[in-house]
C-alpha cells in the first residue's frame, strides 16, 4: 500500500515535522483532555460509591452475576487486539503501511489492556483482596488456586499480554527517544538519554534490535490470538446455552480485531489533525485500515451467521431458544444494534469513494465500537438471564453506577492516551523513514 504513496516529504522532514507538532497541538486537544478527565472523575466517584456501599448498587443479582463490568472488560481487551495485529502481525507480513500508525495502535493497546485490567478488580467489589483471588497465592487454608479454571487462565493471559505489549511498545520507542534527546539540551537531554538507554543508532545496536523486534513480533502474534481465545473460554467452557460453543475463540478474535481497527481509526483521525500529522499519516494508510476493518467485519458477520445456523442445526432446543430470544426477546434491541453496527454499516466500505471520505469512515468506525460493546453485552447478559431452569430466570438492565464506571473507563483510557500523545511522537519516526524514499544520490530507474 505504501508503495503506492507519492511522498512529498523526505526523511529529513520526519523528525522536525513530527516533533514540532508535539509542541503545538491544536486547542481541541486540551478540550478533549478536559472532557476525558471529567469522565475519569465521574467514573472514580461511581466506583467509590460501589466500594463504599457494596456490589448491590450495581444491580448484579441472581441469575445475572456478570453484567456491564464484565462487558467492559471484554470490550477493552478486544480494543487492544488491533494494536498487536498492526504492530506485530502486519510487521511479520511486511505490510509497510502499518509503519505510520503502529505507534498509535500500540499505545492504544497498552492503555486499553490497562483499562481492561481494572474491571476484574472493580467487579470483585472488595478490590483490596483481589490479589488473593487472582494470583497463584495460597489462601488462609494453604489452598492453591484452581489451574483448571478459565478465569485463572485469563489472569495469566491478560497479565502476559499487558507485559509483552508494554515491552514491545517501549522497545519501539527507543530510537525515537534518542531522536528527541538529540534535539534538546539540559535536564530534558539527560532524561531522554536515560529513557532511550543511551541509544546511539550504531550498526551493532540496529542489528540486534531488529532481530529482537522480529522475535518479539513472532511471540506477540500467537499471544494476541491466544488472549481473546482464552477470554472467550471464560464463557465457552461453561454449560450455559449460548456460550458453550466451539466457534467462540475465532469469533472473539475476529470481533476484537474489528473493534480494535475501528478504534484505531477513530483515534488516529482526530489525533493526526490535532498534532498536524496529515503529511505522515496519509489517506492511503487510513484507507488500508478501513479495508482491514471491512475484512474483519465480514468475518464477524460470517461468525454471527454460523453461530445462528449451528444453534438451529445442532438440534439443542435450549441453544436454539436462546438464539431466537436474542433476536426477538427482551434483548432484541441490543442484538439488532450489534448486527447493524458490526455487519451492515461497514458494508459502505466496499465503495472506494466512501473509504476516502474520512467523515463517513469516522462515524461508521464509532458505530462499530458501539456495536462491539453491544455484542459483548448481548452475549453475556442474554445467556445468563435464562438457563436450563425456568424457575431461575430473571431480567437485568445496566444500573447508573455501572454506566458511570463505564464512562469513567473511557475517561481513564483517553486521559492516558492524550497525555502520551502530548509528550511522545505518535508516529514511529525511525520506522516511518523506512517506507519513505531513501535519500539517494543516484536516483533509481523509473523515478
Amino acid at each position, binding site marked *: 500500500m505504501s508503495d503506492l504513496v507519492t511522498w512529498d516529504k523526505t526523511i529529513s522532514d520526519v523528525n522536525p515535522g513530527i516533533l514540532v507538532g508535539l509542541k503545538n497541538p491544536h486547542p481541541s486537544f486540551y478540550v478533549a483532555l478536559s472532557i476525558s478527565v471529567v469522565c475519569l472523575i465521574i467514573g472514580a466517584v461511581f466506583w467509590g460509591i460501589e466500594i463504599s456501599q457494596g456490589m448491590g448498587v450495581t444491580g448484579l443479582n441472581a441469575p445475572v452475576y456478570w453484567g456491564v463490568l464484565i462487558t467492559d472488560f471484554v470490550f477493552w481487551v478486544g480494543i487492544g487486539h488491533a494494536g498487536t495485529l498492526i504492530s506485530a502481525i502486519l510487521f511479520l507480513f511486511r505490510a509497510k503501511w502499518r509503519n505510520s500508525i503502529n505507534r498509535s495502535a500500540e499505545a492504544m493497546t497498552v492503555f486499553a489492556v490497562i483499562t481492561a485490567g481494572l474491571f476484574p478488580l472493580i467487579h470483585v467489589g472488595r478490590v483490596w483482596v483481589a490479589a488473593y483471588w487472582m494470583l497463584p497465592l495460597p489462601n488462609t487454608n494453604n489452598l492453591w488456586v484452581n489451574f483448571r479454571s478459565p478465569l485463572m487462565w485469563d489472569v495469566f493471559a491478560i497479565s502476559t499480554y499487558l507485559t509483552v505489549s508494554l515491552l514491545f511498545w517501549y522497545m519501539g520507542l527507543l530510537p525515537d527517544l534518542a531522536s528527541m534527546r538529540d534535539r534538546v539540551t539540559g535536564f530534558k537531554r539527560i532524561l531522554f538519554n536515560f529513557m532511550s538507554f543511551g541509544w546511539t543508532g550504531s550498526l551493532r545496536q540496529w542489528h540486534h534490535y*531488529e532481530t529482537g523486534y522480529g522475535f518479539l513480533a513472532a511471540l506477540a502474534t500467537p499471544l494476541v490470538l491466544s488472549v481473546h481465545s482464552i477470554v472467550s473460554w471464560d464463557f465457552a467452557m461453561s454449560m450455559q446455552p449460548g456460550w458453550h460453543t466451539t466457534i467462540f475463540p475465532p469469533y472473539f478474535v475476529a470481533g476484537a480485531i474489528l473493534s480494535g481497527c475501528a478504534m484505531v481509526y477513530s483515534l488516529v483521525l482526530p489525533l493526526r489533525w490535532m498534532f498536524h500529522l496529515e503529511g505522515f499519516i496519509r489517506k492511503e494508510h487510513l484507507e488500508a485500515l478501513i479495508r482491514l476493518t471491512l475484512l474483519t467485519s465480514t468475518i464477524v458477520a460470517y461468525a454471527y451467521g454460523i453461530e445462528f445456523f449451528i444453534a438451529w442445526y445442532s438440534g439443542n432446543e435450549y441453544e436454539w431458544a436462546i438464539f431466537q430470544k436474542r433476536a426477538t426477546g427482551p434483548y432484541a434491541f441490543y442484538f439488532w444494534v450489534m448486527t447493524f453496527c458490526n455487519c451492515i454499516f461497514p458494508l459502505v466500505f466496499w465503495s472506494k469513494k466512501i473509504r476516502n471520505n474520512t467523515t463517513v469512515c469516522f462515524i461508521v468506525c464509532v458505530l462499530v465500537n458501539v456495536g462491539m460493546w453491544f455484542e459483548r453485552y448481548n452475549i453475556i447478559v442474554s445467556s445468563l438471564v435464562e438457563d436450563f431452569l425456568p424457575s431461575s430466570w430473571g431480567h437485568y438492565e445496566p444500573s447508573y453506577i455501572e454506566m458511570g464506571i463505564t464512562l469513567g473507563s473511557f475517561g481513564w483510557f483517553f486521559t492516558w492516551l492524550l497525555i502520551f500523545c502530548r509528550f511522545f511522537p505518535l508516529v514511529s519516526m525511525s520506522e516511518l523513514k523506512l517506507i519513505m524514499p*531513501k535519500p539517494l544520490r543516484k536516483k533509481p530507474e523509473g523515478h
Partner: protein
Amino acid sequence: MGATHKKGIVASFQYFDDFLDSIKAIKGKPEFRGHEIYSPCSYHELMEFAEEQMGPSQVRWFTLVGALTGVTAGFSMCLLLDYDWPIVVGGKTAGVYSLPAYFIFGFEVMILLGALCTIAGMLIMGRLPNPRSWVLHPRITDDRFVVFVPNALPDGDQARLLQELGAEEVYGV
C-alpha cells in the same frame, strides 16, 4: 562513539547509496580497523551488511532459552501446586493432572519469559543501557549516516578516502 570516547574522525553522509558504497569499500581495510557505523534507521541493505559483518544475531539464543524456561516453569507451577494440594474438581480423582488445562500456563509463561529474555538479549548484545553515550553527530538519529574511524586524523588518508566516497563532512573528534 558509544561509551568509548575514542579519538578519531567522523564522516557523515547525506546519501544512503554513498554511505553503503563507503562502508563496503572500507570493510576489512587495516587502516579502518575498529570503525563504527551509525544510521538513523534500519534499511534492509544495512541489515544485510550487518549480518555479513557480524553473523546472525545471538539474540535468538536468548529467546530460545527464555521460551524453554518459560514452558517448563509454566507446566511445573501447575503440576507442583497440584501435587502440593490436589483439588477435586467435578468429582474427578485427585492427583490426576490436567495437562490440557496446564497447557495454557505453559504457553503463556513461555511467551512471557521468551519476550523478557529477548528484550534482555537486545539490550545486552546492543550494549545497552549506555548512560554515558556520546553523540558523535547531532543528526545521526535524524537523517545522516555516519562512519567513525578511530585513531585517524582529519587530514589523513582515511579522511581523504571517505571524502572521495561521498562524505559531506569529515571532522576529528
